[in-house]
């Protein structure tokens, strides 16, 4: 199919699919940040069992393939009498996995601060709360801007998992596989989706590195 045929027949579907992908991406990323922060707090708190379960969470979800998790949620959970809609399954998968990475990035942000600064803060007489607010968190957040930008892009790529379940409206990958199983969409049909994904990634990347340039700590 030529590009004009594709656009006249499926044009509005592509727009719809792009919006679906954006929606999934931003909801997942917000959820992943919230869970990632909670997990990180668990991992740095002095209570051993919480630390260990935080570490286990991260190891499980940074290592499990998205497809494997999604298939488990969709097909295996009903056997446990837990019935979720397809949309919920996709969202859970695309929140839990990036959350593990968010926590890893925050942890490496914290670790990048260096023990010397913590010791210096303490010898100045700061208590834990002040030290966190004035020394640890501001630096950890700055260190994490670029990784978090990449995570947002990775989250967008992960939402292509949505194509593995019947969703309405479809996401960008789902739409292309739908077009190509009914029709001969050809390379162009893939390219339209690819350009939409890629364009989003480039915009996110640009904004991320702009923010990073503004707040980076130059050593």
């Amino acid at each position, binding site marked *: 199919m030529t590009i004009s045929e594709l656009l006249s027949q499926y044009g509005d579907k592509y727009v719809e699919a792009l919006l679906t992908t954006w929606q999934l991406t931003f909801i997942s990323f917000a959820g992943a940040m919230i869970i990632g922060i909670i997990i990180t707090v668990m991992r740095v708190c002095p209570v051993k*069992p919480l630390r260990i379960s935080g570490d286990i969470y991260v190891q499980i979800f940074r290592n499990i*393939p998205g497809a494997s998790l999604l298939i488990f949620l969709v097909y295996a959970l009903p056997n446990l009498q837990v019935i979720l809609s397809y949309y919920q399954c996709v969202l859970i998968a695309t929140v839990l996995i990036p959350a593990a990475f968010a926590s890893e990035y925050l942890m490496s942000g914290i670790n990048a601060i260096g023990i010397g600064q913590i010791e210096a803060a303490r010898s100045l007489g700061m208590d834990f709360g002040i030290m966190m607010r004035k020394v640890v968190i501001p630096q950890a957040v700055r260190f994490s801007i670029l990784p978090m930008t990449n995570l947002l892009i990775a989250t967008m790529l992960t939402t292509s998992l949505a194509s593995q379940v019947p969703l309405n409206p479809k996401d960008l990958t789902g739409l292309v596989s739908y077009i190509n199983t009914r029709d001969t969409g050809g390379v162009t049909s893939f390219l339209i989706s690819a350009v939409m994904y890629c364009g989003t990634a480039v915009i996110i990347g640009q904004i991320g590195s702009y923010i990073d340039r503004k707040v980076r700590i130059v050593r």
Partner: protein
Amino acid sequence: MRELTVRDMLYETPGKETRKKTAVATVVSLLVIMVFLCYIVKLFSESGQLDSRYWFFFTKLTTWKFLFEGILGTLEASLLAGTSALAIGFVFMCMRICVYKPLNYIGIALVEFTRGVPTLLFIYFFFLDVPKMGINLPTVWRISLPVAISASGMVSEVLRSGVNAVPKGQREAALSIGMREINVFLKIIFPQAVRYIIPALVSDLVIVVKDTTFSYILSFPDLMQNAKVLISNYDALLSVYLVAGVIYILINYFLNRISVSLAKRSGMTPVVGR
């Protein structure tokens, strides 16, 4: 002794009061975790998933042999994809660092394209569209090639960071003893660059392993596909998917561990990956 990280240093040595509070919090959190685990076990038992008919076949050798064949399939596809990604990534990297400007821009565009497009889209392209063009690839390449293409941009950036990490003096010294630019790159810069980036490459392999999970779309016999066959043989869905998931987690966990220990040995900060 385990080395101290920032997270161990965030608190002062606790006094009597704090120790008491921490102890209470430990007990409470243990209880919460226990309740959570009990709830999961209860879910399993109430829906009859702990029934032996869902688990007995894991005592058979044939089951494990079959799963092992799946793991081999996963590894075959992953290694093939990994090496191809390395080759494609190397080409992209050469385009990005070469002196000829237009090639630079093509390189940047290719890297951004492969990094910004999900693997699944490449897989569907090779699955749905390439056969229609009359190109028939062997099954393993139908999964390995899209996975490789999708990883190549990332690999190219890793390679480039390695090349940039080689001190400038190395190149100048090599040029001043009369080596040609191409020889400088191949014999001096690149061998050193590779040593810097091996940990990052190993951790990229994790992404490749994860991406090959989509093999079930084209029925390539990897771990996921063999798990599906087991499921239809024994009519046991949950247990098989659970075991397959754990195997994947273990494979990737060990790859990550290898990456971290390689990084430590060469005195670098470990990479987190994606």
